[in-house]
């Protein structure tokens, strides 16, 4: 091949240029410590990097949620434990009072019960991070307090049954509160079936006993009137032993809708189905009415009631205190209500403990996952420094040789020898 002067020069320039381009890439990788600086450095790697970063920050977000949830449930457990201690104290006092030979000494027991009741009420109204622990999702309102004349303790919040849900990992939502309803509430549950094939206008009525705060028995009547397919109007009434309504104006009826395929309850008054509070303040009657388990089935029509307790712990203790003050011992039934509550709170402490375990286990899994993702990101993104530096040195050597050789050869021509 015929070699011309311009050819040699062009070749040298091209090769020097190429070596310098490679050096510049390695240098900028070394100085930024990143292999991928723009998508074209590795299109597939960049896509992977974006997805991994997304997973990592989402997972870190879950970890943060878990930390918040853990402190919330921890405080809830502490509050429940202090309530449980007070309840144990009361049960001890009541046992002692029962054995006491002198009945005029019951006043001191009344004081003990009164102190314990205060302690329980305080714990029930405990706040953490601006939220009342046992107020469900209406946690900005203090949930429990005395009614206007001080004769009973009632729920002040609009809804103490709300679940505070947090996301703790992909597709896993965890409740992190023990609701007031679960812990203290009187829940009247209605379950069973309404007949989906019944004619519009047909009526289904059921009744059960409910109790005022001092233990007086009343009758609660719930009536479902079918207004359209899968739709019912729910009205209710509370009647005293004489059969007359406690309401001067009956409470407004609710619109209940069922899912036409699953038969499950889909909404109450346009909102997601949840239990709601039924009350008759002048009679000191207050309980949660839970209809969420009712289903609509063709040809089956059977509704039944169940209640977790007759009177809640606050009003039971209030009654016991008043009796002790009057020199009366509480009835066995009343003591049984306290023991029943003691069992309930122990159950709730244990289920809160389970939530703690679940949160911690999930957090361990998340931490592992985050480590793995961080490793993957580092594989994709981090510069192998040793290799990069060696490459750089090698290029530098090549560059020097090129310079040396070109300085020797380029200026030469026949001219130098004439």
């Amino acid at each position, binding site marked *: 091949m015929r070699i*011309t002067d311009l050819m040699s020069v062009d070749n040298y320039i091209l090769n020097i240029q190429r070596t310098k381009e490679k050096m510049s890439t390695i240098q900028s990788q070394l100085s930024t410590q990143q292999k991928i600086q723009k998508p074209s450095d590795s*299109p597939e790697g960049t896509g992977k990097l974006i997805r991994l970063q997304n997973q990592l920050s989402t997972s870190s977000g879950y970890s943060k*949620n878990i930390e918040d949830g853990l402190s919330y449930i921890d405080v809830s457990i502490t509050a429940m434990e202090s309530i449980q201690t007070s309840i144990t104290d009361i049960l001890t006092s009541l046992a002692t009072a029962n054995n006491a030979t002198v009945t005029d000494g019951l006043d001191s027991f009344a004081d003990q019960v009164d102190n314990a009741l205060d302690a329980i009420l305080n714990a029930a109204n405990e706040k953490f991070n601006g939220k009342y622990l046992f107020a469900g999702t209406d946690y900005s309102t203090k949930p429990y307090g005395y009614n206007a004349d001080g004769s009973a303790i009632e729920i002040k919040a609009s809804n103490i049954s709300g679940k505070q849900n947090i996301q703790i990992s992909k597709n896993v939502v965890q409740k992190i509160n023990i609701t007031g309803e679960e812990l203290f509430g009187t829940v009247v549950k209605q379950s069973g079936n309404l007949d989906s094939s019944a004619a519009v206008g047909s009526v289904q009525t059921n009744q059960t006993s409910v109790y005022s705060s001092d233990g007086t028995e009343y009758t609660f009547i719930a009536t479902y009137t079918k207004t359209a397919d899968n739709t019912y109007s729910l009205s209710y009434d509370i009647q005293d032993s004489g059969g007359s309504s406690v309401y001067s104006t009956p409470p407004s009826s609710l619109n209940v809708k069922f899912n036409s395929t699953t038969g499950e309850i889909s909404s109450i008054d346009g909102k997601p189905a949840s239990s709601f509070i039924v009350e008759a303040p002048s009679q000191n009657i207050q309980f949660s009415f839970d209809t969420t388990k009712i289903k609509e089935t063709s040809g089956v029509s059977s509704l039944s009631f169940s209640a977790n307790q007759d009177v809640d712990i606050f009003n039971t203790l209030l009654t016991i205190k008043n009796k002790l003050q009057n020199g009366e011992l509480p009835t066995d039934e009343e003591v049984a209500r306290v023991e029943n509550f003691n069992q309930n709170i122990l159950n709730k402490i244990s289920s809160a403990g389970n939530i703690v375990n679940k949160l911690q286990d999930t957090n361990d899994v998340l931490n592992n996952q985050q480590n793995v993702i961080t490793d993957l990101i580092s594989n994709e993104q981090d510069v192998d420094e040793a290799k990069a530096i060696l490459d750089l040195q090698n290029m530098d050597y090549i560059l020097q040789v090129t310079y040396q050789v070109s300085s020797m050869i380029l200026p030469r021509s026949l001219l130098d020898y004439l």
Partner: protein
Amino acid sequence: MISNIFNIATRSLDVYRKALDVTAHNIANSDNENYSRQTVNVSTSTPNKIAGLVWGTGIQVDSVTRIKNQFIESQYRKNTGENSFYNKQSDLLSRVEQVFTEPSEYGLSDLMTSFFNSWSELAVTPDSSVLRENVITAAQNITARVDTIHQDLQTIKEDTFNEFNDKTQTLNNLLSQIHDLNVKITQQSGNGSPPNDLMDKRDQLVNQVTSIADTQVYYDPNGSVNISIGGVLAVDVSQSVKFEVIKENGELKLSTASGHVLQKIKGGELGAISDVYSSKIPDYEEKLDNVITALFKSVNSIHSSGYSNEDPPQTNINFFSSYEAGVLKINSAILDDPSKIAVSADGTPGNGDIALQIADLNNQQLINGSTLVESYSSLISDVGSDKASSDSLSSSSALVLQQLQTQKSSYSGVSLDEEMANVIKFQRSYDASAKLISIADEMLQTLLQMV
């Protein structure tokens, strides 16, 4: 007959002086890469027939020709077009690539993740005004980023349109220069001596035209070069065309002054610009639009089912008010009053189920079986691989071009060694011819002294 020696020697002096002239011209242009080396073609001059014998009359110059391989030249032209197409495309795409600022914490993917995390965090304390502000800030980061990306892409489009215009002007200018040269070259070729230097200059211009647009080049035997672009004869000896830029259905095209629209320019810099302008950027914009539209619709549909943290709680509130022409807007009522963010499923202030559902959109396969971030990441991969492939095609075509340049240079370039050897060779011949004249002179003297 001694006078014949004079004649032969004088003629050869003349020939070698001319040969030295051409060598000097070669040496002078040894660094000019558009120059093709020239050589003097000589032959023995017509012999005389005297007294039945044929007597040689020496040497004569036939022509000065340039050494040029048309096959290499046409290969070179074709690859110049290809190389400048990929170079330009890589240039423009590197600007497009920067618009997305990926991978970094300023990229849209990280902002979207932060946005969903802010909802997930809000679900923990749904009535917290700080966390509600966080959601708004995260959403504002997204809207600002989307806006910037959109505007930057528009700016690039405007710039590329301007560049398309400028390049078209350059093309028109080159075509008119080639036309001028065509006229001169055809005139001078008529005289029998090819105007080598003008032809070199014209070849250089033709290469420049090829780097701007894909061309059909035809060398007419009359000496003119005819170039057609996009199916239209752009230049010959009689005329050169002035092209105008038009936009047709969002595509950049050329038309003649008479309004004839050319086929789509596929090669050269104009081809690259029109490709990025009419196809690449709109494609990226559409993919980004899909992601943002899915975000806009899905967040709104969940958000409007929730209840705000007001007394009484409000429902049917949209989180984003509109997404039009690349501008995503947050509902101004929410910006004024963060308690209007509706995350409660039942109206109680501590319920965050709607926030959980919005946060879960991060995991939902909203666009053809992939999540928002996955879909966005594949857009970024597309941008990256378009750029990477134009880079690699640009460097591979540069290698081919370098190879051809070497061949071209090897064939047509000036070698100083060769030229210097020629100088010595021609000088010796010149010396010898001069010596011949002095010997002939001596011979004449000798004869004259005999008289």
